[in-house]
């Protein structure tokens, strides 16, 4: 089931299915097929913090909503 990155649950791992073509995302390692672990959501329209390998990255809500992901069952 595809959901957007903003509607994910903390602690789960997801695989990116589809996302807007955005250089800044690709260059830090978010691209279709990449696995991301969702660390936390910030309230009141704040960003989503994810980890990719050993990097922690925060992505603003508006962009996170445009990234489609699928849960990876470990």
């Amino acid at each position, binding site marked *: 089931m595809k959901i957007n990155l903003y509607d994910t649950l903390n602690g789960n791992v997801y695989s990116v299915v589809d996302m807007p073509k*955005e*250089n*800044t*995302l*690709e*260059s*830090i*390692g978010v*691209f*279709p*097929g*990449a696995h991301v672990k969702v*660390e*936390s*959501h*910030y*309230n*009141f*329209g*704040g*960003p989503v*913090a994810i980890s*990719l*390998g*050993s*990097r*922690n*990255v*925060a*992505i*603003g*809500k*508006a*962009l*996170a909503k445009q990234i489609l992901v699928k849960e990876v069952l470990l």
Partner: protein
Amino acid sequence: MSEKKEIQELMQNNKTILLMGAPNVGKSVFFTHYTKVHVISSNYAGTTVSYMKGDFTLAGNNFTMIDVPGTYSLTSSNEAEELAILFLENNPDGILFVLNAADLEGSIKLFLEVKNYNKQIVCALNLCDVAKRQGKEIDVELLSKELDVPIISTVAVKQEGFKELDQTMESVFSKLDFKKETNIKKDLDIKELWKISKEITDKVVSYTGQKANFLDNFGQKLLKPWPGILYAILIIILSIGIVVGAGKALRAVLLLPLVNNIIVPFFETIFIDVLKVSGILGNVLIGEYGIFRIGFEWIIALILPYVLLFQLVFAFLEDSGLLPRIAILFDNLMSKIGVQGGSLINIMLAFGCAVPAIIGTRTAPTKKERLVVSTLICFTIPCISQSGALISLLGDYSIFLILLLMFANFVLFVLSAKLLSKFISGEIKPMVIEIPNLLIPEKKSFFLKFKARMKSFLIEAEGPMLLAVVLASILTEAGLLDGFSKMVEPIVSGWLGLPSEASLALILGVIRREMSVAPLLAMNLTALQMFTGAIVSLLYLPCLSVIGVLTKEFDLKTSILIFFGTIFNAIFVGGLINQVVSLFI
């Protein structure tokens, strides 16, 4: 673009070694080690946004090392990346590439992009201490084989591994025959690069099962919205408290007595008793606004204590990696007023000085964001010299006036951000920001940086400040000010409700920001007058060097608009407050 030409010439006429790597891997520390040129390093992405160069010798050959801005990739998605590509395309003779041991995957990916340009590369595997703390063990030999490049492990802030690195650089770069190689550049697929990087990382990294330490735990806690926001607010309050409180103490206990009881009386004795100067010259030298009086009162007793403490506190915030964490926690607020959380780092930097903050906006992904943030800084963010002067002005009356001014500043900031993001065309992209590891600042590099900042403050600010002081003395003591004061009296006294001599503040404020406050100190103002004066100064144009940077980074039109816009805005808002409050008292 003149910068482009400059770079082409530089690369043609010198043997150049590019210093490259992802943002925040410690490049600045390497650069200082080789060139002895001091650049300022900080723990967040984008300390080096323009480039720095410095000369050094290796095995008897002269080289120029270029500190290229750190980037995550080479896809020209912002001005820093474009600059990095420009350097690579202009035939450098070699590259010192810095890998991040704590984020090998990301480093390898960028390395592969750089390697694609077919240059001689030596790698330093930096931040090995952080990787170790996180329980990672890296097989350097295997990594070196996989990447086909010599690699030396380092902990740059402790100079660990530098000897070996020097030797390797010497043997690799002295063998160059300096025929510029041609680029055989292939097109790369980013996805493929990430896949290869992950494979290599998995091969060379093993985990020791080390428990996460206190810092990593605290870093993780700060990332959670709760209690992160609580910690962030505590950190901000504590920082302001230290700067304001300790600054006040330093001023009252040490600097004011020093200036009032020792330095000024000393010059009074010299000029009045020994040299017997009198008349206009005497007044200009040591009168109420004499150069040798206000020069010390304003610069040493008023501004210096706050600048000193701010630089100490801010250097700590920068090196520890707290700034991006704070930025993330406030992203929601920032996006509501039309900007994004990431730009908060530049805004916080501007509380020190607007110049590096405006240059720092080069990492912004869109033109609009650069312009909005820079304009916002010019209109509403006071630099520390100015804040120091404002704290002295209002604090002597009541701490509540300071709090009120902070609140007014916040409201004006929000309003300006809303207006600017609405009326400047283009788009602002949502935040994408990497969160660095929390670090305990290393004593040596921390103090080096602090020293460098203070030195550059003294060098860059001293000239204009003295100019302002001399101008103030001549204008007031020689009676030249009266004419101007009469001219602007309707504005200064009528609209703003200030004494007419306050016109001096408006003149001096053009040269430097804090000088728009200093003349008000000796004027015996009422609380309302103080507050109006503080608001005018807060919103008044940033100093001349900021106007210069704006012209360079944007264009003449922008800087002229900001020049007149800030003056108008300051007088308009300040007067409005005065008029409205006057209705009630």
